[in-house]
């Protein structure tokens, strides 16, 4: 039951052969071409800082995995020691696991590297609180002479375990709050001035300030990506924006496209519409007594979901006051997940909610096949085929609610879907709260927050204008 990731299994896994030219062609057009060239230049031992602000689903993990697999394919099975260490860092265990799977897929399936798992475990290390490798425990041990690649959830885990002197190159996925990178800012600054000394020789960071959540105003200023922008005039620094989302279907991306990205986002994901008959749905609801009372809502929702990959259920009421869970929303969300899991059996579904208590309330209603429930914070960098996104407190409450304190969480909550997203809550009330807080606050130091509220207002405005809103 424990969701530990067995990284060792990935070393043994057989990956289907895939033509490398597909990826070469994707990464041979702008802006990936420039980004690839700059990162390869860095990996070749040249001090540099490369930053790529990327929209949700820009393919950060895939890109890093491709670059590293391509770069290491000829040396990863070699004998002997390595003076170079390439380190991939991401904020969550899921991302590290995802990176490793993609890296192995490229290494074996695309580049045809075929050395035994034992050999790979000599050259690779993977660190994270949910990472395991029962058959190849060496993967979790300290970095010795032979290691060339480390994937980790944080830099501290790596730095404490490097036993031999190596030149280090970091590929950072800054998807969220990663305060450790503050330590890198002065090093990046030195590189930008052409003074790269010490073992850390360069960085590439792909991230999105619009998805950096859980940060105070001051912490936001400390984002590595933000810091790199300040030194982008240096010859050693490149900033290359990524605006194509390979994950999000265009229709589902529309609210955040105009809300958070000023229109600079193109969705290339595959949209999904649901196919179901009235009888099918009725039968399903009869077997789950808890869902019977939501039959009308679910039918209205499915009618629209048959035509659009984004459906918003506009509730005429705000989140339960004084609590971090709302029974009605928990049950409705669970019932939607239940029906969808039965109707679309080949798709995975995630119910994404704002509070841990709300996630708990949904989970205890019962496990469903192909369904997970997670908080927005724990869902950073993750994605799923279908997302059921339940809003948290929409009411303004002194502008200190979840969304008002950190409007960027809404962007994360609205951008996880590969095929379809269904939102539940009151966009009307949330929009009013956001507008109210913008007007109320005059303090200069909250400019950044006001900017976030403006983005949130625009997103909600767009959501409410869409054809696929169902008022219930």
């Amino acid at each position, binding site marked *: 039951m424990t*969701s530990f990731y067995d990284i060792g299994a990935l070393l043994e896994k057989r990956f289907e052969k895939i033509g490398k030219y597909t990826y070469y062609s994707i990464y041979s057009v702008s802006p990936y071409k420039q980004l690839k060239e700059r990162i390869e230049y860095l990996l070749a031992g040249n001090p540099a800082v490369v930053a790529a602000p990327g929209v949700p689903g820009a393919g950060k993990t895939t890109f890093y995995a491709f670059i590293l697999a391509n770069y290491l394919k000829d040396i990863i099975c070699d004998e002997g020691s390595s003076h170079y260490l390439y380190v991939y860092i991401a904020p969550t265990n899921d991302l590290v696991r995802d990176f490793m799977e993609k890296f192995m897929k490229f290494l074996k399936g695309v580049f045809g590297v075929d050395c035994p798992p034992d050999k790979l475990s000599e050259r690779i290390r993977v660190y994270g609180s949910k990472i395991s490798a029962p058959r190849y*425990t060496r993967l979790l041990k300290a970095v010795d002479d032979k290691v060339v690649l480390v994937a980790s959830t944080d830099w501290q885990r790596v730095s404490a375990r490097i036993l031999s002197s190596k030149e280090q190159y970091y590929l950072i996925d800054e998807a969220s709050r990663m305060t450790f990178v503050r330590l890198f800012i002065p090093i990046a600054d030195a590189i930008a001035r052409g003074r790269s000394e010490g073992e850390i020789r360069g960085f590439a960071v792909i991230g999105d300030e619009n998805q950096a959540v859980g940060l105070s105003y001051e912490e936001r200023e400390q984002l590595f990506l933000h810091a790199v922008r300040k030194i982008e005039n240096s010859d050693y620094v490149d900033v290359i924006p990524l605006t194509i989302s390979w994950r999000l279907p265009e229709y589902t991306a529309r609210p955040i496209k105009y809300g958070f990205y000023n229109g600079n986002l193109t969705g290339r994901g595959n949209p999904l519409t649901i196919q179901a008959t009235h009888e099918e749905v009725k039968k399903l609801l009869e077997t789950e007594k808890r869902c019977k009372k939501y039959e009308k809502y679910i039918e209205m929702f499915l009618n629209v979901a048959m035509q659009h990959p984004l459906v918003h259920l506009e509730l005429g009421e705000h989140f339960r006051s004084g609590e971090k869970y709302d029974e009605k929303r928990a049950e409705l969300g669970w019932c939607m997940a239940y029906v969808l899991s039965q109707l679309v059996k080949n798709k995975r579904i995630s119910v994404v909610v704002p509070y841990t208590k709300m*996630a708990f309330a949904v989970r205890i209603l019962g496990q469903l096949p192909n369904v997970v429930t997670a908080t927005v914070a724990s869902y950073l960098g993750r994605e799923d085929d279908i997302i059921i996104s339940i809003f948290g407190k929409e009411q303004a409450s002194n502008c200190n609610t979840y969304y008002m304190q950190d409007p960027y969480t809404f962007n994360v909550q609205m951008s996880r879907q590969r095929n379809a997203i269904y939102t539940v809550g009151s966009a009307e009330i949330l929009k009013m709260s956001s507008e109210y807080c913008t007007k109320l606050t005059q303090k200069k130091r909250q400019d950044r927050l006001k900017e976030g509220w403006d983005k949130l207002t625009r997103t909600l405005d767009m959501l409410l204008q869409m054809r696929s809103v169902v008022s219930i």
Partner: protein
Amino acid sequence: MISVKTVSLGASFCIKKAYLSLMIDTAPSSHTPYDQPPGSQEIHDLLAYLTPFVTYSILREKSLNESIDEAWNSLRDYVEQFGNLTNEKYRKHRATLLEFLSAYAALLKWLQHNKGLDAENIYIYTERMLVNMPQSSFLGTHDEFLPVIGVPDVVIVRADGNYGVVVDWKTVPERGNAAHYFQLALYRHLLQKVMKEVDAFLIYVTKSGMRKVVSLTRPLQSLPNAQTEYREVNEYIEKAKIVPSLLYGLTFCQSFLKTAVNIGKQYGIQAFNPRKGHRPCQYCGHREFCQYRFAKSTELTKEERKLRSTFFKLYKIALKKKSEEFKNLVDFNNCVRFNRLIFESPTVAKLEVALPRGEPFSEEVMRYSLGKTTVYIFSLNDPLNKNINSKVFYSPMLFGRYEDDEVNLVPRGAEQMLEVRVRMVSPMFAVRWLPLYLLYNLKPNAKIFGNILVCPGKVPMNIELKAVATIENAIVKYERGVSREGKWALEMIKNIVLTVADEYD
């Protein structure tokens, strides 16, 4: 909260040095001072991993030489995966470990013979955290003001809860080791809050070849593999109990030194003065800082006076926050109960509780939603937590991250079974998790893995305080010409502090 080692330093040596250590020396997340001999931390960690296994082996009449390797082999893979030690380190220190464990084995045999300890009737804990909060009296005053955290190297508890043994490993030469006696006397004092009888022993193994067991509670007969010595420490505790009050006074009252010296004198607590050329000050790393911190205003330059008074304000802010954090180290108001703890792996503990069948959103169920948070795990069957309800003395079995994202509420007959998991999150904590995991493997049905209390809490860290103290120390050394390192940075920080002082004025 003050570490037991800091209190011991104040009681045995110099209250001023204890104050400065409290502010500067201690590593942020451990209770181990930086100034240990090289390799000492690794030896301590290795002993923590090995001791539970070795203890049971010795009590079952196995040879030590085999047991130590068997113990290491049973854990090596886990330690290398989840901790920060390697097989090379074990090989490097093996001879020293064997020295320590030979003396320990001899002591164990003595305890087996004289105190009836055997493999079936003991719990063995290594690196176990002991927490003692100030004990309030009926009138709201403090019956005993002893806010300390201690982490003894080994605690052996007889399962009946009436007898315990505390052992500490010492790698430093037997010089100025009154601090060690105070340290053990304090551990013993804390453990006596839950056990009638507690014996305390120090085991010294030094590079000069000394191998010695010092008993602090009863005369020992000669042991086969070590010298023995008896030190009477019964009176030490009264002296040690004064130290926290003096340290609090020095920390929160700017002109408390004279009072501290006078009170200290009555109990034989010393305060050396580098200005008077006291001999111990010649070897003290805090000499410059001590002169500045405890100087009369007239003995400082105008700038130093300003710096000192501003830093004092900064300390007060940092300490206030710290005190709040420690006061709420364990949030006993939001604890949840579980029937049982099951180790799923060395770093994951599954917790199970049977609840009556009912509505899913009942208060009884929803209270288990703690989210992803740091928690302390106690066993109410553990003799060390016999008096946990008083919230004065307690000893968590583990701490880790509670993750209710894998919660499972499964109907089982008339009940429903709720499961959650707690994980070890940092390799730094492996030294606490792995020995317990080993104990679990040796005795999965031991009572201490039942009747579990899980409480949200804080990880004790002193980062802000240490940062302020380190900066002040560096500026003072720089100003006095002791060190010119980081000239530019220190000049800048000094200017910032003095600007803050102007703002305050």
